[in-house]
């Protein structure tokens, strides 16, 4: 059960991190007219954070070694 619990904890952390990164008030930091290479800042941030979150999900979603039902 133990290693599974650790894995499950990591998934919750990624989820909560995603909730914080993709919602206001975090977004209001980037909601301004300035841009990177003319691209609007907020969009650049959103797509980067989204891609990063997806990468984190990939890291924590590796199939656990065949656990016999000791899952979440």
């Amino acid at each position, binding site marked *: 059960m133990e290693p599974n619990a650790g*894995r*499950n904890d990591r*998934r*919750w952390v*990624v*989820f909560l991190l*995603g*909730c914080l990164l*993709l*919602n*206001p*008030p975090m*977004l*209001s930091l*980037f*909601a*301004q*007219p300035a*841009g990177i*290479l*003319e*691209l*609007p800042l*907020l*969009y650049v941030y*959103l*797509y980067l954070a*989204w*891609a990063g*979150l*997806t*990468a*984190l*999900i*990939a890291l*924590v*979603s*590796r*199939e656990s070694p065949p656990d*016999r*039902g*000791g*899952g*979440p």
Partner: protein
Amino acid sequence: MLGAPLILAVALGYVGLLFAVAFWADRRAERGRSAIANPYVYALSLAVYCTAWTFYGSVGRAAAEGPAFLPTYLGPTLACALGFTVMRKMIRIGKAHRTTSIADFLSSRYGKSAALAAAVTCFALLGLIPYIALQLKAVADGFDILSHAPLIIMPRHLEAKPVLEDTSFHVAWLLALFAMLFGTRKLEATERHEGIVAAVAFESIVKLAAFVAVGLFTLAAFGGPAALFGRAAAEPRLQEILAAAHPRAEPLGWSLEMLLSFLAFLCLPRQFHVAVVENVSEEHLGKALWLFPLYLWAINLFVLPIAVAGSLQFPGGVDADTFGLTLPLALQREGLALVAFVGGMSAATAMVIVESVALATMIANDLLLPLWLRLPGRPLSLERDPRRGILVLRRACIVLVLASGYAYYRAIGQMHSLVALGQISFVAVAQFAPALLGGLFWKHATRRGALAGLIGGFAVWFYTLIVPSLVDAGLLGEAIVAHGPAGWGWLRPGHLMGLEGLNPIAHAFFWSLLVNLGLFTGLSLLGTPPAAERAQAELFVDAFAFPARPEAVPLWRGTARVRDLRLLLERFLGRERTEEALGEFARHHGLRPRPGRPADPALVTFAEGLLAGAVGSASARVMVASVVQEKPLRAEELLEILEENRAAISYSRELEKLAEELRAANRRLEELDRLKDEFIATVTHELRTPLAAVRSIAESLQAHPRMPEERRRSLTAVVVKESERLGRLVNQVLDFQRLESGKSLGQPLPLDLREVWREAAAAMRPMLEERGIRLALEEPETLPPVFGDRDRLLQVALNLLSNALKFCPDTGGRIDVRLERRGDEITGVVSDNGPGIPAEDREAVFEAFYQVRRRGPRGRLAGTGLGLAIVRRILEHHGGWIRAASGPEGGAAFHFGLPLRPPPPPPPALTP
């Protein structure tokens, strides 16, 4: 010039292609080579989430409100982050209970309640018909726009066409045909529809490719992203969407929409269908959980560029929803516009197919069948072939779903934008979320709570979203929206309790969820569910603690005959499938059910599970109950059975662990046994070689009494040498054996390692001088004492030196010994300038008789083969270590260390 006939041909050709793909996948599945049994197709099938709303509607929303289109895709991404907690559990339960739809899932969780199944089905139908209408509208609009090219005319300015000339009518009936052909081949709805899944995955590729193509073309046409956004920045009317007013002006709306799509992703019947019912293996989930968000990311990447480019290109008069088509048209790329049309069609058709199959299964299994079973005077046995009847019913339901979708589109579809229609549906299906998630994780959630929450939430949805749209359509007076019913301002549909500051969707979502959650949790906390419901709650919430096969936990008591159950199964599954299933049951339970015998509870549960896969759990319950005499179990008895099984599974897990440990220990013993045999074989071999030499010399001396004196002397010298070697070998074997058993060490005493090495060097001096080898002993001025057995450590030094001696070259050989203190141990290096040890052998040289396999530098056996093995044993018994490395001049170097503190008493060693 595109022209209507060409576009129609492309549209129908595309649907034809879908038939081909589905047909191909079904054929492969029949031959046992599934095309969909991999995580990539699974992830692509999840992408049925992206409908025409994504393809056209997102652009429209982005053009009006900036980033507001994104929460719809960020929500499912967050759901994927929790996929292992939520979706894996849904898949596990869905497979164990042979769930056919989300209505069936919820009904099964709450005590196989037919009422709940019916309520979920009705609400899903009401909520999703507009969503299906939206897809048909998208296809029709796309067709209208393309057929007027090169003119750009908005469909809302066109006269409604007669039904038979309407493309979306033809697409609708073709899709109905498709769904009937590939979605209702077998009665068992849990049987995978490989053709449909393959077609949906194919469509996911098409829509992504088409949208990316339009996006790349747009960027290229406007000179790259920097140029495009540079132009947009100079345009005052685009400031708002670029500076991203939305999340700042309406932060609550943003988060609520994200929550809404999070819940809808889990609750939409079509998502449930592809994610749970069509899932081939739980193992595919891991990869799909990040592939699917990646897909969402990619398909959304070009939404903003297309929206901005469209806004620049068309200052007004063109709906932003249509930019994906009108932009290529305006830039004279009719071919690309056709590609975009096919992409939009693929997004729409995939959704329509899966949603109509899922909804039709729900209507047939969860609404009509239970009603039919309750009809008085229509007992089950009168129906001759219910299988055909149910399949026809399901096909009729598909037609019904598509016909209602089409009728809705014809009636009021023209008035709403794509996004608004889709979001109204999202709020409707989100009403399933409290019952679904509560049912998965909260044992005290009850059927009454779920049903009340669902009805309450749905009522609020209807009042806050549908009533205003009825007013818009002129079916209700405007007074109710403006002033509330009977002038009660606090009941205005758009501003319940006077709530301001939210858009209509967020407002409706908030209130419906609040009412739903309040009723669900409140009634659940107040009531105690009946026993059967509590049992299902245990099986769902603790899904991972119970065996995967429900018949292993037979929650049933009574009398039933095998013959009755078999007849029941044969009527619904056919004779062949029944035989197969009963065979499977016999294999797992070790007994073949005989007709005429009483059936045991496991068989009754198994039969009910099988039927549930065909007709839904609520109907299966009723059907089985009609052929058996059930004695209801009391709550305590049910819970006792559950506890026993839970204990049994954890007990069996313990046993499995124990067995694995035993197997490992046994493997280790076998290995030791093998080593021992090998050791004995090698020792005997080693003893026999000198013995044979001695014997043959003795025989030769005996046979030739008159041998010349010189020859005789040389032969006796060989005998002496070989006997000495034999004696040495026997001594070393004994030494080694004693060391292995850990018995041979004397009392550890403090001693100076320098003295030991000096003594060894002195003892070796004659042999070193004989071969002209220089020995350098380098030692520090002071060296703390180590604790050990002096004779044994001397043996270490002698063995290491004679080993180095053996490998030194004949001329210019040298051996360097260096002792020093490092931290709390004394280390030493013995290096020579011989040929060295290949890296791959550096561990093997410490094995007994290793060098038997390797000859010494002068082509003779260089020693007994136990020297280094003994060295390592002695050092390890002293708590030290030794390893071989490469020396400074390419020769061999042996590094060893001894701790300064006395070693702990050695553990009893396992002798080989």
